[in-house]
Each structure stands twice: as C-alpha cells, then as structure tokens.
C-alpha cells in the first residue's frame, strides 16, 4: 500500500491519537479541524510499527513527559515529503538517517523560568541530551539573566527588550520576558517552530497555577503540582502537534 499522508489538525493527547488512528485507519481520516499547529504525519504500513505511548486508558497525573517514547520509523523519501509538507517557516525536524531519530524525538531539550532578579524558579529537562544538575542549571540561569540584561545595554538604539533568540550549531534558545521581568526560555532543536507561542502558553500557565496559588511565594522556586501537571500536558500537546507522535 502506498504511503498515505495523514492530516490531523485536531490535537489529541498522544495515546488518544493512537487509539483513534488505529480505529480510523480503515474507515478514513479523522475530522480535520483548522489549527495553527497542524502537522502532517506520515506512517508506513504495517501500522503496528507505531506503538502507543501507554497501554492504560489515561495518562496518570504527574506522568513525566517522555516516560516511554514511541518509535516512528520512516523511510528517507517519506521524511523529506514530511519536511516539505510542514509549514514554510519550519525546517525538517526529523533527520533522515534512522540512527539520529532517537536524538530527534524531542523538540524541546529543556525549559527554564527565572524571576526578575535572575534566580531560577523552575527548571525541567525533556531530553536525554543536555541534562544538567541543579547547580549547573542555577548557574546557567543567572548567566542568561546577565546576558539578557547586558544585551539591552549593548543595543545601539534605546528600547531594546533583550535577547529573543539564540541560535547555536545544534540548538536554539528562545526567550520570552514578561513586562514584569520574569523570563521564560526554552532550549530546543534548531528550527523548532512556534516556540514563542509555547512560551506564551507557559506564561499563562504560570499566572494560572503558580501565581494564583496562595501558598506559592513570589520569586521562589515553583512547587505547585498543578503547574507541573498542566505544563507536562502543554509540552506533550506541543510535541504531538509538531512531531506527530
């Protein structure tokens, strides 16, 4: 059977997607809703190559992202087809050689949130690469805070709001600073799209679940279960939308 492009604009949680996909494979494509994060997913027959994230019915609360990864094995021509189908301002996310696929299973490597004085209040890493311990993450956070502030001084024109994007050889760092001075930055794969939207969504989660928690002290590390849970959901949705798994 030929490769069939599979369009889903409706963002399912990962396990739901797989349940539905298997169910609808024979009956046709699921209803496609318009979504700014729509992605094409290419899969090749036989469908059992795509394994569901979990066998149980629902992800339990506190399930960290990436507890079990799915393997989507695509052939090189299919992958370049996928790269072409993705929106114009994104680069192909999945590398062509199968040996690099495990590296490319995460779009986001890590997320940092720093308060207005540069102290780290939240750190989460999502990939096996670039994992760092607490001290290193604290150091990196204050380093980034300093660089961000210095960049405002370096600006030739007044009214600079700091660094938005740092592009390195094999990663990108997107940063968003709210008007109150809290910075959200994410280390992700080069060319990962829509990171700014993700950062805004995380800012909203911060206002909802961290700031509205009366027992959360401002500028202190975030220890709110609801925040962690919803953050994991948002990251997972983002991953599913981007990478189709």
């Amino acid at each position, binding site marked *: 059977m030929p490769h069939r492009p599979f369009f889903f604009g409706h963002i399912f949680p990962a396990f739901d997607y797989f349940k539905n996909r298997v169910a609808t494979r024979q009956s046709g494509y699921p209803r496609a809703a318009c979504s700014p994060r729509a992605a094409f997913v290419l899969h090749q027959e036989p469908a059992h190559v795509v394994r569901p994230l979990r066998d149980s019915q629902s992800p339990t609360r506190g399930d960290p992202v990436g507890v079990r990864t799915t393997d989507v094995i695509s052939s090189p021509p299919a992958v370049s087809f996928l790269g072409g189908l993705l929106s114009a301002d994104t680069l192909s996310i999945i590398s062509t050689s199968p040996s690099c696929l495990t590296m490319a299973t995460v779009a986001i490597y890590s997320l940092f949130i720093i308060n207005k004085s540069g102290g780290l209040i939240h750190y989460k890493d999502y990939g096996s690469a670039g994992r760092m311990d607490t001290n290193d993450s604290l150091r990196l956070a204050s380093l980034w805070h300093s660089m961000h502030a210095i960049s405002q001084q370096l600006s030739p024109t007044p009214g600079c709001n700091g660094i938005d994007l740092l592009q390195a050889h094999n990663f990108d760092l997107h940063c968003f600073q*709210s008007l109150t001075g809290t910075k959200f930055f994410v280390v992700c794969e080069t060319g990962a799209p829509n990171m700014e*939207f993700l950062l805004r969504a995380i800012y909203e989660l911060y*206002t909802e679940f961290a700031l509205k928690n009366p027992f959360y002290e401002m500028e202190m590390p975030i220890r709110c279960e609801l925040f962690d849970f919803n953050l994991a959901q948002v990251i997972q949705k983002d991953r599913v939308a981007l990478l189709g798994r």
Partner: protein
Amino acid sequence: MPPLTPPKSGDALFASVDRVNAELFTLTYGAIVRQLLTDLEEVEEVNKQLDQMGYNIGTRLVDEFLAKSNVSNCVDFKETADTIAKLGFKMFLGVTATVTNWDAEGTTCSFVLEDNPLVDFVELPDTCQGLQYCNVLSGVIRGALEMVSMKTEVTWVRDMLRGDDAYEMRVKLTKQVPEEYPYKDDD
C-alpha cells in the same frame, strides 16, 4: 518580544476569562471587611489591611492581565492609565472606568467608577465613617504598577458610600524605576 496576537478589546477580554457570580464576589468581600472590623476594631487599621491585601493581589494579578491581554509596553503614564481603565477594570471587575483630571505633568490622574461591584447592597453605618470600603482596589493598582516598575500613591477622592455621586480614586506616579542590571558594581 512584541505580542504575537493583537491586543484584545475590553469586551473580548472580559468574555474570554472565567467569570464568577457577582453576588458571591460582593458577599465574600463584604464578609472580609466585616471580619477585619471585628478583628482589628480600628477603622484606620482596617483600611491599611485592605490596602495591603490589595497590594498582594495586585502583584499577582498583573501577570495574568499581561498574559491574557497581550498588551505591549506602554509609552507613557497616560497610556498606562487608559489600559488600566479600559482593559484592566473590565477584565477583572466587568466595569469600565474613565480617566479624568490629568495634571499638568501627566503624572496624576483620576479613575472614576460609576458602577462598582464591590459595594452592591452596602451601607456604611455611623460607627464606620472613616472606613474606605473599597481600599482593596487602591492596593491592587499600587501593587500591579509596582511590578511593572512604577511607584504610585493612590487615594480615594469620592466615595458613593459617603454620599458622593461616583467612586473616584486619584493615582499619582511618584517614581518610575526601570530594572538596571548592576554590571558596573565594581565602581
């Protein structure tokens, strides 16, 4: 980073946030004020507590406001006041305030509220004549503006519970303190 989507209008903003029963809100606030009066007994103390509570609320509220409304940096205090009156009050109280009485330098203005959900059903007794019933609102504005590096003083000029025709609070910008990174701290 500039806003990714255009800033919403006041009505759109009000429609997009979760809302609560207005009576619940009014009655809860009334219960707070009554309890503070019972605990503290001094009307001035109660005023101070309400202002402090408002300050704590304001420091947290401003991030939610900025996240949901997508406004960009305000150029001057006039724009800030307009944003608070049209978007801020609308989003959280469901009413729009009007900005009036600008002074010559543009650092002091008045917010006038015709309609105030905090004071539905309220009448001040004679024993509480010095009470600023809505003092929490002045604290909220002070706290919120402090988080975006503006120090302000807020006072009540007119109060319907005292027989005036509207609620008017006077907001004075005392200092604007942008965060400066002290990278020259070896000087």
